[in-house]
């Protein structure tokens, strides 16, 4: 049986304790009203116009580089139900957002967003719940850390132009909610694919991946495992 030094030495721990730091920024995003115009048009034209609107609205007209984008997630949470069967329930980014809002006593979900925050922490990217009006990070849902960290023997794959990265990020969760819990060690993994496009000096990101993570039993909940795919939506801040 193979027992590497790390297992014997640290019992499988992947790091010590960390404290995510929030980043506060002002909002510059202005929701694109022009999208409503396309409803009566043919779908192909609608897609073309939507794409151009997003491109111009996201990179040209507003002309800024974004570090936070809407986090779009679709997946399944697995848990054992009351009759002892293992069942899967669909979850999305809205499920995660609603759960956070409930805990934070926020009833108007239009005031908050769940975002993918590039370099949201010194250890890597984060998925945060932010205020739409101020950009304030209200809570960090997930930390995607140590995906390229030589000290742990983890190395990302990057192209020569430094515009494309694939890496294995370790998922950390920091506080208790239905789909997260406070834990010192990693609770899952994300296969993250990033590409960056720079136009007129402004850099925009396209990030997607698959992630899976576990949640310890809390209150009346048994353990939960979540798995799904994510991508980025509109630039937010």
């Amino acid at each position, binding site marked *: *049986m*193979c*027992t*590497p*030094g*790390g*297992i014997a*030495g640290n*019992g*499988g*721990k*992947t790091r010590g304790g960390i404290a995510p730091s929030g980043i506060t920024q002002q909002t510059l995003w202005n929701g694109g009203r022009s999208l409503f115009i396309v409803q009566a048009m043919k779908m192909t034209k609608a897609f073309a116009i939507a794409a151009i609107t997003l491109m111009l609205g996201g990179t040209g007209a507003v002309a800024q580089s974004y570090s936070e984008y809407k986090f779009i997630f679709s997946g399944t949470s*697995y*848990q*054992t139900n009351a*009759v*002892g*069967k*293992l069942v899967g329930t669909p979850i999305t980014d809205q499920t995660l957002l609603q759960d956070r809002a409930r805990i934070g006593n926020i009833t108007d979900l239009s005031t908050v967003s769940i975002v993918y925050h590039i370099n949201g922490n010194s250890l890597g990217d984060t998925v945060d719940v932010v205020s739409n009006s101020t950009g304030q990070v209200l809570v960090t849902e997930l930390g995607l850390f140590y995906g390229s960290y030589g000290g*742990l*023997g*983890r*190395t*990302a*794959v*990057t*192209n*020569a*132009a430094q515009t*494309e990265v*694939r*890496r*294995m990020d370790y998922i950390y969760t920091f506080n208790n909610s239905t789909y997260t*819990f406070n*834990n*010192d*060690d*990693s*609770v*899952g*993994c994300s*296969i993250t694919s990033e590409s960056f496009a720079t136009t007129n000096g402004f850099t925009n990101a396209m990030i997607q991946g*698959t992630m*899976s*993570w*576990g*949640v*310890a*039993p809390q209150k009346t909940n*048994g*353990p*939960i*495992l979540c*798995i799904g795919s994510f991508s980025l939506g509109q630039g937010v801040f």
Partner: protein
Amino acid sequence: MRITSIISAAAVLLLALMNLRGQSYYEYKFVFSGTAYRTNGAGNIVGTPITDKTLLQTQGERLNITNLSTISIVYHIGGGPPYGDTVDIISNATGQTLTTEFGLYFGSDTNLGRYAVTNAAQTEQRRVDQIYTFSNTPYTYENPDSLGTAFTCKRFLTDTNGNTNSIVEGALCWDVTPTGTNSGPVICVGNFTLGQPMF
């Protein structure tokens, strides 16, 4: 015959064979299909298909075994006690473990805050296992820390004679730090399932 009929017949044959042998197995052929991503000579990230045969071949080369029909890559239930399962290269003749390709450890270790989800009957389980690799090959790297995860789904079927057979499948991802002939890092992703029982 229709494809469905062929698959059904094969499944019945496999089950019948397992019942005839009348034993519980803990090692099954490891069937893997995935992609290895690396940066090529032109500086672009490219994906190359890899399978269980690719992994077996590279370990065969490291072990100086030229006749690959004498060895197999297997999913070994409980192969790394007390940490979890392993994926091993074994001798077909003796069942001896020649080397370990992966350790799938700590998927259910409450000290680390990791919990598997299990049904009440204890016949089905889903877990996030940490992947460890122990040797330097084009697809593995000797490292004391975990280098990936497996989202693993296990099912156990017990027949009327009390013999337990396992169905394990999942998604694997792991990375490889440059060593030997690897000039750059490699990220591997893919899905696995179990093939025929071995031991």
